[in-house]
């Protein structure tokens, strides 16, 4: 596969360098919202959506900053733009689709401080992707995040019924599961060739 082909960029973010399990981005929702399968899949949807929006915004902002030679303001601009974009998305959804708002509602503000979103914007800048590549990258990253979250939620739902020792509860157990999942995802490392 060509390293700059759209398929490779998508697969790279989706499986090979999975945002949660290989790059450790967005661990807070990964541990916090993975209790139930249904909430996990909604959170995943919200993240995919916000990633697409913020990746597009970041691409535009970066072009502007380079035009005016203000690259040192990049971080401040990105975080401000992402925060306001999330707010804007929230208001738009509330206005046009109350049903969607009810299912995504509480997750949207949480996403602002999700490091996966800012990470995506920074990585796409560092790798100098063009606009279409940015879209593929953000779709892959969002899909990868959703996949990890759903796998984790499925495992944790089963684990509720399992008989574990007293000390092995909560975060420590969730982290062990995360480690096992991460181990499994390392198998995809050969996919890039």
């Amino acid at each position: 596969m060509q390293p700059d082909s759209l398929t490779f960029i998508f697969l790279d973010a989706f499986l090979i360098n999975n945002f949660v399990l290989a790059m450790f981005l967005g661990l807070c929702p990964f541990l916090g919202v993975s209790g139930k399968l249904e909430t996990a899949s909604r959170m995943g949807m919200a993240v995919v959506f916000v990633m697409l929006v913020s990746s597009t915004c970041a691409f535009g902002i970066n072009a502007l900053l380079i035009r005016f030679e203000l690259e040192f303001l990049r971080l401040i601009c990105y975080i401000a733009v992402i925060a306001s974009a999330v707010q804007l998305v929230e208001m738009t959804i509330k206005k046009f689709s109350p049903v969607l708002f009810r299912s995504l509602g509480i997750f949207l503000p949480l996403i602002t401080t999700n490091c996966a979103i800012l990470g995506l914007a920074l990585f796409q800048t560092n790798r100098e992707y063009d606009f279409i590549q940015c879209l593929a990258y953000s779709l892959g990253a969002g899909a990868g995040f959703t996949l990890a979250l759903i796998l984790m939620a499925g495992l944790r739902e089963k684990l509720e019924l399992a008989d574990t020792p007293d000390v092995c509860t909560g975060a420590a157990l969730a982290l062990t599961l995360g480690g096992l999942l991460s181990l499994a995802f390392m198998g995809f490392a050969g996919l890039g060739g």
Partner: protein
Amino acid sequence: MMKDPRAPEALSWSVFTQGIWRDNPVFVMLLGLCPALAVSNTASNALAMGLATTFVLLCSGVLVSLLRKVIPKQVRIASYIIVIATFVTIVDYAIQAISLELYKALGAFIQLIVVNCIILGRAEAYASKNHVINAFVNALGMGVGFTFAMLCLGVVREVLGSGTLFGVSLFGPDFQPWAVFVLPPGGFFILAFWLFLFAVLKKRKQVRMAGRQPKSETEKEVARAT
């Protein structure tokens, strides 16, 4: 008189120690896990990350505390984020100037200090309500606590994963490193291991305390009966 919960806390030793042990950001509050797992693959990376985060914590804590009467309530979070982002940009350029090698090893995680929830959490929960000196001391405690946690992870991962400590070989050439511990899964496993360890120790302490209590009661009864 009822104590106002929003009143500034008096400066005491516990303002400093809170962040180091009782409310350790990584091990107790489980905040800032992303950088804690991502850059703790060697002890020196972990130390650098801990120090960079401490610097941002200190500067943003002091500035937020100074501006606490100026920032309107409605836009406080946005203002805190801008303050934090400014200091992170300074750290980013400073590390790039000091050591390019370190800069490459830490990668985008220096810039991602912005979204480290420890910093925003401290700004919102402590610095915005307390005096500058308190905010400084508290931020220092949190920073030391975070650095300590980073070192706990970094040292174990580096010793097991590559058989070295701060780049110095420990076990000689015959040592077969457990590569998994410097790879992503190792981060999860080592943090889980520390949490298990703390849970076991806490449980033991509880059992010991509970064991002592009824014993003294029965001793008293025996003493009374005789």
